[in-house]
């Protein structure tokens, strides 16, 4: 379904605009419905043979094995999947807008690698015991990376392509640091760190979810509020300034919040690549570049993608779990190429 249309007649501009807006709102509701269905499917399938009715009756009961499986194992896992998809897609969309570059994402800018390195340090220092230590260390390094990229941009007034290049270099730097820690680590630490490279939703419980939610949810409405400013930024800094946008404030605030969200999304799940880059592109192909719709669509698509990937990862090869990072790519890349071939080439 494609709801982005250009107005064919100037006389019908307002009516056409309202119609498109209405369609986009309906589309958003549809995506929300798909996400809810996806969540229900995720709740209903797993290593044990619990069907949907057993799931509902388990939710009603106060204790028992079925309730433990649904409430303590499947529900937190799905919640983490929603949060990770939401966070990565949103920070991807925001970064792409701020840098006006389709290649920008928490991963290509090195922010995710910085956060990953921070989280690994947090794990090793706190022996995996302190959620806040892991989260704050992840956020600290994500922020450090973002500021470094911004500093490069500000001092040298470089193009967004150069910023991406700086980001890719930073990504390799932090990946190497993580590998170095892994190289020096004990067998146990090596195993812990390896999980970062593949991503896993098994480890996060309700406590970790609470921490991640605090890092992802509060910045979201603020970024949504800046949707107009992001639209203006897409037209260029000069145009944005003419429209009264404080470019530096939006860029700095945006990158700060995107870093916080990225750190929240990956600090307990490891690296789930691809979602942050591609979910916003898929959203853009479906609803266009108006960030009022692009941001919520990216969030919903990211969540749908990760929840579906998780359901497949734990049910395709029961009881073994295929790492989530692998499945998101298997699912998302073909869909992305399908849209890319089907849609016009100049959608960006």
């Amino acid at each position: 379904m494609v709801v982005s249309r250009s107005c064919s007649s100037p006389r019908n501009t307002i009516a056409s605009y309202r119609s498109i807006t209405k369609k986009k709102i309906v589309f958003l509701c549809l995506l929300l419905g798909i996400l809810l269905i996806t969540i229900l499917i995720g709740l209903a399938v797993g290593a044990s043979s619990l069907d949907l009715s057993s799931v509902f009756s388990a939710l009603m009961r106060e204790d028992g094995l079925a309730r433990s499986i649904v409430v303590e194992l499947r529900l937190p896992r799905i919640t983490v999947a929603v949060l990770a998809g939401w966070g990565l897609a949103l920070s991807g969309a925001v970064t792409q807008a701020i840098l006006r570059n389709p290649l920008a994402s928490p991963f290509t800018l090195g922010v995710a690698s910085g956060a990953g390195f921070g989280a690994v340090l947090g794990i090793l220092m706190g022996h995996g015991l302190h959620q806040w230590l892991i989260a704050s260390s992840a956020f600290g390094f994500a922020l450090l990376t973002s500021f470094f990229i911004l500093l490069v941009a500000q001092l040298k007034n470089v193009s967004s392509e150069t910023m991406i290049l700086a980001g890719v270099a930073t990504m390799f730097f932090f990946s190497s640091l993580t590998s170095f820690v892994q190289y020096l680590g004990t067998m146990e630490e090596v195993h812990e760190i390896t999980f970062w490279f593949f991503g896993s939703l098994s480890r996060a419980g309700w406590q970790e979810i609470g921490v991640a939610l605090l890092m992802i949810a509060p910045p979201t409405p603020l970024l949504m509020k800046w949707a107009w400013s992001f639209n203006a930024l897409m037209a260029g800094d000069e145009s944005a300034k003419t429209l009264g946008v404080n470019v530096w404030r939006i860029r700095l605030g945006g990158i700060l919040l995107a870093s916080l969200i990225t750190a929240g999304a990956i600090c307990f799940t490891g690296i789930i690549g691809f979602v942050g880059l591609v979910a916003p592109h898929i959203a853009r192909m479906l609803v266009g570049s108006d960030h009022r719709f692009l941001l919520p669509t990216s969030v919903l698509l990211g969540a749908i993608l990760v929840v579906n990937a998780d359901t497949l990862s734990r049910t395709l090869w029961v009881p073994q779990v295929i790492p989530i990072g692998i499945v998101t790519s298997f699912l998302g890349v073909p869909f992305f190429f399908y849209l890319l071939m089907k849609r016009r080439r100049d959608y960006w």
Partner: protein
Amino acid sequence: MTLNKVLSILLILLCTVSGRLKAKATTQIVVDARGRSVQIHCPIRRLVSLNEDSLEVIRILHAQNLVVGVDNRIPGRPFFWPVLKNRPTVGKWNEPSYERIAILHPDLVLSYGNRPGLELEKKLGPLGIQVLRLDFYKMLSMPREIKTLGMLLNREREAEIFLKWYHRKLDLIQDLIKKDPHQPRIYLESYSNYHALGPSSGGYEMGVLAGGQNIASHLSIPYPEVTPEWVLTRNPDVIIKTVSSMAAYRSGNPETLRKIRDRIIHRPGWRNIRAVKTGRVYVMESDICAGPSAIIGIAYMAKWFHPRQCSDLNPEEIHRQYLEQFQGVAYRGIYVYPNEH
């Protein structure tokens, strides 16, 4: 002691040493951990070991004097390796420095079957350095591999003495567990959380030899990540988590192991697992889960799996004998939690 007696003893010692030094140059064909027939030119006078399992075997064979290079973990455990701690290091067990090995110019490099990859032979072969891959951590092939190394190092007698002791202990355990008609269902977890010890991992073989029925026996990967939900539904009677702190030998405090156990017990939903309900959740250090010392791990497992039949089995005593008789170091350290007597 008379002068004659002293001279006789010295003569015997001299003959033994010179016999070993003047060992004939021969070529032996042995089977390595990959199942390949490998030609090894003897005598072996200079040896590099890339892992601790083979070093323990070397110590059993009284061949420490042949070791000219060790992996980089050895200096970090000076209490356990008082003699070898100062030997030159050649890098990580799975990524050694070929240059360092080349400088040491050993006759033989000992490594695991799979890692490092085959580049090890490709790089060292042209330099005239032989490579032998032996997986001493696999219980089923370990006795044969100890014999192989004993033969190559001209230490058959030492190998035989250890294997006799080993089989005596293993037979004792087997006899005890045979008395129990019930095979408990067990979940063995590797160092990484939710990664089971599946078939062809060393820990899996230990569980089988200790009379447990591994819930991951039908899986195809040695260390698969499994869902917590699956473990919950398989409802194991015993859970064993393996850890690798590298500090077990000098540790005198079980606090770290206790914390790890607590975290397992408090995993979401796991209070419904029989092992958690009955308190049969154990943590075991890697020191006794691999290599020739795995017999100690098997003894602990047997005791946990069949407490009534193995009530008189004393894993600590087996451990003491192993360390003092075959490793030449004093018995100490904390290796399991809880350690019920």
